[in-house]
């Protein structure tokens, strides 16, 4: 096996193990500690493989905590983290820019506006908790759609990346301005809007998982299949075109899939920053630059990262909870800085 493939295989195994460990810690640690062996036994029981007898199953109360509270929250964290990381990696590939993240083209601003509009204007009878995710989802897709439309109208000739980036910045600023305007006019809901914007997994339920899963799965599938295309795109639009690839088509497909996945993540969790930026970078530095490695390893690693960040968010100040977006930045930034320092000398 050549070194590139061996490195990819190792990275995938390490990331998958990390995700499993994070998931197990995530469901075991909390106000009511659950024994990991009991957790495993109960989970195996639940899927009809109880005959393995790994340990004493949990009590009924513990099993309830596991299956109804911790599991949906932890699974949602893994889905959101994985989705944001793989979408971030895809955006970076499409724009050939290491600073690209999944919120670049107005997904965050659009979702923020959608959520704010529902919080401030929707009648309580409508059921705000159900309407916010839908509004955020629609807002995120609207933001990206506007940016893409503006970018392709303005950038008819040549490489459309720069135009698209600028269009994204313009749309994001515009939507953020609208969101701020609405928010300032309704100071009574300020707290609620802010806590949504900072991101939350605390109310994570199976219904959220069900809402997100189809979009996330479709998006992740398309993105994971786009690794080779993004590798070709890495040599520049012109050279990619002379290799028989249509850069515009690859860019459209990947952005569409990544934005759909991002919108589904934002809808259920608010704006969780840093995951989409940091995780792909860590992966790239540790496992190599090919998107065939970066995309799947980011998916697994992003899931592990957010599950652990959520674990920190709900334990350090227990019973109070920190906003998850604060934790990802608070933990992620120094970790990232340290990693840049350690690997910088080796790779430059």
């Amino acid at each position, binding site marked *: 096996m050549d070194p590139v493939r061996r490195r990819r295989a190792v990275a995938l195994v390490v990331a998958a193990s990390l995700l499993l460990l994070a998931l197990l810690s995530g469901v075991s640690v909390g106000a009511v500690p659950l024994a990991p062996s009991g957790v495993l036994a109960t989970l195996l029981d639940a899927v009809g493989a109880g005959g393995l007898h790994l340990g004493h199953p949990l009590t009924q109360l513990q099993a309830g905590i596991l299956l109804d509270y911790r599991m949906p929250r932890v699974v949602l964290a893994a889905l959101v983290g994985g989705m944001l990381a793989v979408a971030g990696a895809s955006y970076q590939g499409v724009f050939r820019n290491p600073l690209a993240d999944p919120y670049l083209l107005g997904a965050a601003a659009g979702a923020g506006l959608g959520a704010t509009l529902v919080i401030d204007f929707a009648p309580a009878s409508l059921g705000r908790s159900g309407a916010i995710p839908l509004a955020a989802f629609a807002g995120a897709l609207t933001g990206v759609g506007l940016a893409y439309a503006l970018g392709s109208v303005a950038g008819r000739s040549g490489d459309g990346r720069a135009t698209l980036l600028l269009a994204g910045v313009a749309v994001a600023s515009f939507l953020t301005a609208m969101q701020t305007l609405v928010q300032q006019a309704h100071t009574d809901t300020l707290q609620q809007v802010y806590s949504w914007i900072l991101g939350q997994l605390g109310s994570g339920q199976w219904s959220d998982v069900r809402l997100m899963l189809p979009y996330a799965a479709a998006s992740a599938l398309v993105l994971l299949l786009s690794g080779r295309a993004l590798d070709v795109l890495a*040599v520049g639009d*012109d050279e990619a*075109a*002379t*290799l*028989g690839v249509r850069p515009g088509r690859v860019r459209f497909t990947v952005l569409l899939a990544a934005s759909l996945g991002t919108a589904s993540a934002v809808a259920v969790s608010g704006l969780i920053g840093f995951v989409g930026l940091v995780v792909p970078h860590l992966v790239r530095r540790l496992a190599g630059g090919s998107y065939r490695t970066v995309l799947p390893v980011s998916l697994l690693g992003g899931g592990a990262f957010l599950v652990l960040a959520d674990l920190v968010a709900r334990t350090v100040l227990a019973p109070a909870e920190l906003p998850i977006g604060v934790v990802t930045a608070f933990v992620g930034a120094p970790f990232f800085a340290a990693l840049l320092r350690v690997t910088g000398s080796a*790779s430059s």
Partner: protein
Amino acid sequence: MNGRASGATASGVKVSGVKVSGTTRTAVPAEVPVSEVAALEVRGLGVRVGRAQLLSGVDLTVPAGSWTAVVGPNGAGKSTLLRAIAGLLGYQGQVLLGGRDAASLRPRQRAATLGYAPQVPTVPQAMSVAEYVTLGRTPYRSLLAGPRSDDRDVVTHALDELDLTPLADRPLRTLSGGERQRAVLARALAQQPSVLLLDEPTSALDLGHAQNVLELVDRLRWEQGLTVLSSLHDLVLAGQYAQRLVLLAGGRMVAEGGPAQVLTAQALATHYGARAEVSPGPDGVRVHPVRRPG
């Protein structure tokens, strides 16, 4: 130029024969630059970007197995011509590849026929040399399927041809300028095109490395039966390595033919505003720049 029409009709078959067998090429000595087979033909090519007419009325016939260099002063349209032929710019007129209209080819078909290395290649820093060269196999397989064993053989061969085997697992960012240019050539070679477009392949290299790269291209042309069309701003090198020259000035073709016909002191004065002496050499011509007296 007079054999153009018959060349166009015959070339479809003959060019593919050259490419597949790889041995037919040796039967065509480089000293006979004009074969009747046109690997690449350009008819009435014009390029307009916005209001600027960058090229107009370019007619060009590149015989199979030859090395044709496009020369001309800065802004003459050398890169534009190559980019138009590569399908990267919209153009008026026709580009024929082995007798087939390039515009009618699907991107993959075109990529399997025509390789292109830009003046400043985008080199993905973290990618290994072997991964980069493997990208040359893109036209031959689905983006969803991995390289097959025959793709890997081609890549191994290309790395070997360009003495890159010891560097295969190194990230591209650790390579020197000359090594990087060899990696770009290896990628183009792995693409197994019949026509190779090289935009200023030596512009980033010092004289010794430039000569190495040009000699390499010449050897590959011989061994692989490649047809090479390159832009070269360095007339000293162009006069020695190319068998045919095309002189562009102001977006028009002003001279075409062997080095001695195109690189005359008169032409250099007229189109470059340059003072130079030109003398015959063992390979092509020698161009000697002359300092203004006083």
